[in-house]
């Protein structure tokens, strides 16, 4: 060679992976010569922390690891026999399976668990972390620390930390135990609590510290439960808000009672379904079917609302009870028409990917994405409604007509048109609510019936004619309902809320946010 240095560098480069290979090969020494030697080799493989040993160990567990007389190890797979580690095809002649006894099996379990902790597959690491947490042995501390050093997925890190703490608790060293207890006490996991309670008997000297840690876990669990209850309450509140907002306009602002409101919500949900089906042929637009459905549903139900107001309701102004009965009949017919057109069974609405799944907030509070989106959406719709009433010309005319119809008319406002538009606006909001509800409720012809009574309660509780009242009413009733649910059950909680609203109306007949002035007297 003309360039000895180059040759040397080449040699080193070639040898580097070979050296790692060598370390693993060295660890294999004695595997298959006897039970004790096999167990020791398995321990060494586990300690190596090298994931390439995984296939070999799995083969050994399943009895597929063969040893030739010359000491070469072979793995019998589906595709034939290959050399262990090297992976080259090999002849299985004269090879016999490596035999296992209980000691080897115990060693295998430990080694597999440790190696899986370092596996490139996240699901495998998660499962391994769970297994190590359950097995709890002081021997795992070192490998857990290695795994923690490499782990990047936060959920698995949490499990690893828990497993590490639990393993430390098993150590003989007092400082280690204390560290384990402290770490478990800092978590908010019911499993950590169970581990602590289990260890209390074995460590009478540490009872005080363990009790303290359990109390800390309990505190955190209680906070998490409270946070989850609040979220569920807000979520229910956002649903109620969406369902009641349109009613707050038609009933609250206009004073027209529309029992077909729930059916408009249902029509909004079916519009979502139709938009979804129509977009099936255009794959590019498919992810946008839900956002597209919002304006379409608004227009569809607003048109239905305008037709209902102009065609029927305006003939009954000043006769609220008749309006109630008439709109109930209309709702019945809409429901039956949808039932005949689409069938009575539930229609499937596919949630877009960005609405699926669960979001983990700090402290382990689980929040479903679709409910979170609906919460945000309901507030946006509320904001837009308020803006439409406060800031637009139409809103101004609407308020003028509600306050004093005759004066508004004499100022040149076409009151009939404003009535129709206001009713269409409220109905359109119901349609938008239907789009949102299609994500969490069954889209069936009687979707709306479940919401109508609750919506009226929200509007009456919050104060007729006040959007702020509707907001507070919806979230208030939703949260109270969810707080009551754990100890009263879903049905009784609903009944309690109903009774509570009835009693509340005793104290404040005009709701939380009562409108002032004589106009409120019917």
């Amino acid at each position, binding site marked *: 060679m003309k360039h000895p240095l180059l040759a040397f560098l080449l040699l080193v480069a070639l040898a580097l992976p070979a050296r790692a290979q060598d370390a693993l090969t060295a660890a294999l020494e004695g595997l298959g010569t006897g039970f004790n030697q096999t167990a020791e080799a398995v321990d060494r493989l586990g300690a190596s922390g090298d994931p390439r040993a995984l296939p070999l160990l799995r083969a050994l567990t399943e009895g597929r690891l063969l040893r030739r007389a010359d000491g070469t190890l072979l793995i019998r797979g589906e595709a034939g026999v290959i050399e262990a580690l090297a992976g080259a095809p090999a002849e299985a002649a004269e090879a016999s399976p490596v035999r296992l006894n209980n000691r080897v099996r115990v060693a295998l379990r430990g080694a597999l668990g440790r190696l899986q902790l370092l596996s490139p597959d996240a699901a495998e690491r998660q499962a391994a972390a769970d297994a190590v947490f359950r097995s709890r042995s002081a021997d795992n501390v070192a490998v857990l620390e290695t795994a923690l050093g490499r782990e990047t997925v936060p959920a698995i890190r949490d499990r690893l930390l828990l497993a590490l703490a639990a393993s430390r608790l098993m150590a003989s060293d007092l400082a280690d135990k204390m560290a384990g207890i402290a770490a478990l006490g800092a978590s908010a996991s019911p499993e950590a609590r169970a581990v602590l309670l289990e260890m209390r008997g074995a460590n009478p000297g540490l009872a005080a510290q363990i009790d303290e840690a359990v109390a800390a876990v309990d505190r955190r669990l209680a906070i998490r439960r409270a946070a989850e209850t609040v979220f569920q309450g807000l979520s229910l509140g956002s649903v109620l808000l969406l369902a009641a907002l349109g009613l707050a306009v038609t009933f609250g602002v206009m004073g027209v009672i529309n029992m077909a409101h729930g059916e408009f919500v249902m029509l909004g949900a079916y519009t979502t379904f139709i938009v979804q089906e129509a977009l099936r042929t255009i794959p590019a637009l498919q992810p946008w079917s839900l956002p597209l459905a919002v304006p379409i549903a608004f227009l569809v139900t607003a048109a239905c609302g305008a037709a209902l107001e102009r065609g*029927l309701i305006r003939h009954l102004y000043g006769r609220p*009870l008749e*309006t109630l009965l008439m709109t*109930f009949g*209309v709702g019945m017919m809409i429901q039956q028409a949808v039932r005949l057109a689409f069938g009575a069974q539930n229609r499937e609405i596919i949630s877009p990917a960005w609405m699926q799944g669960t979001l983990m907030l700090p402290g382990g509070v689980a929040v479903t994405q679709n409910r979170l989106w609906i919460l945000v959406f309901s507030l946006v719709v509320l904001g837009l409604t308020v803006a439409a009433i406060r800031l637009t010309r139409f809103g101004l005319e609407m308020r003028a007509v509600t306050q004093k119809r005759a004066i508004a008319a004499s100022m040149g406002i076409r009151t009939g048109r404003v009535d129709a538009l206001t009713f269409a606006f409220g109905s359109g909001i119901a349609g938008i609510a239907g789009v949102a509800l299609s994500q969490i409720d069954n889209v069936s012809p009687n979707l709306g019936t479940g919401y109508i009574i609750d919506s009226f309660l929200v509007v009456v509780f919050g104060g007729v004619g006040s959007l702020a009242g509707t907001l507070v009413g919806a979230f208030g009733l939703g949260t109270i309902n969810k707080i009551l649910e754990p100890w009263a059950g879903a049905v*009784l909680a609903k009944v309690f809320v109903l009774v509570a609203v*009835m*009693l509340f109306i*005793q104290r404040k007949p005009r709701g939380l946010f009562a409108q002032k002035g004589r106009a409120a007297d*019917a």
Partner: protein
Amino acid sequence: MSLAVLPAAPDARLRLGLRAGLGLFILLLAVMPLLNLLPVSHPLHVSDFLVSITGKWICYAILALSLDLAWGYAGILSLGHGAFFALGGYAMGMHLMRLIGPRGSYGHPILPDFMVFLGYQELPWYWLGFDSFPFAMLMVLLVPGTLALVVGWLSFRSRITGVYLSILTQAMTFALMLAFFRNDMGFGGNNGFTDFKELLGQPLNTTAMRSGLFYASLLALVLSFLLCLRITRSKYGRVLTAIRDAESRVRFLGYDTTRHKLFAFVLSAMLAGVAGALYVPQVGIINPGEFSPANSIEAVIWVAVGGRGTLVGAVLGAFTVNGLKTWLTSAAPDLWLFVLGGLFVLVTLFLPKGLIGLAKGRTK
């Protein structure tokens, strides 16, 4: 019309005609079970089905009367009258369940089947006494009456009127439905009560018993009608009508409107309870579905179609709408809800006084 040449005022004549018509109708109903006894081949034979369904309609007519008293005369549009009907039915059902005794599938001497199934060791306290017929009949009146008293007192006192009261009563029946669907309420949950055996020592499935129940219902209808007639004709009834038309004015004249309305509402609820109690042994089942808000609002449309504010109208409406329902649900089941919904629209827009109003318009 030929009647127009008679000297009497049209309203009085109409009233006379309606009264006579109602009398004739009741007579017709009264002979139905007798005609049922004729051989099937006889041209005047009335089928079992017709007799049993007419029995149901009579109960509905009592419910319509009770609702008319509250809505037509006192202006209380209750969308929860089905709850009072169902509560009366449940009180009767509890009595019938106690009478089954050891004849249930599990053969327990006291506990009804569903309680044995749910692992009850003894009868809940609120089931005590229901083995006695007079006690059960008392409860048929008292349970709906008490509920109406509480709800009515709370609402009328704080001047909840109009649509607010309607929504409140609808919420009431909705809440009761949810509650009765629960298994641990001790009322049979989903399935309610059924498989009744006997009443007053007589087996329920005999022709004699069926006719007996039919006549009892008819008697209850006649008595309810006379009671409502008596009430609405009295000075109290006049005040009630005045409250319906201008509540504030009546209050300012010094009448205690709360008490007037409360009396009408409670009495109305009791009548509805009686209707329910007569209904249950005839159909042989009671379940929480009876509390569904749709049932209550259907009863409202009977009264609206017949003509609210007239007692004959309520009875007429109950029979007309239910007759139509029975016919249509077998002839064109998909159409029925359109017709029912259409009736709501039609009556409110074009026939505010119902069929009776139509007749009145013709005689003028």
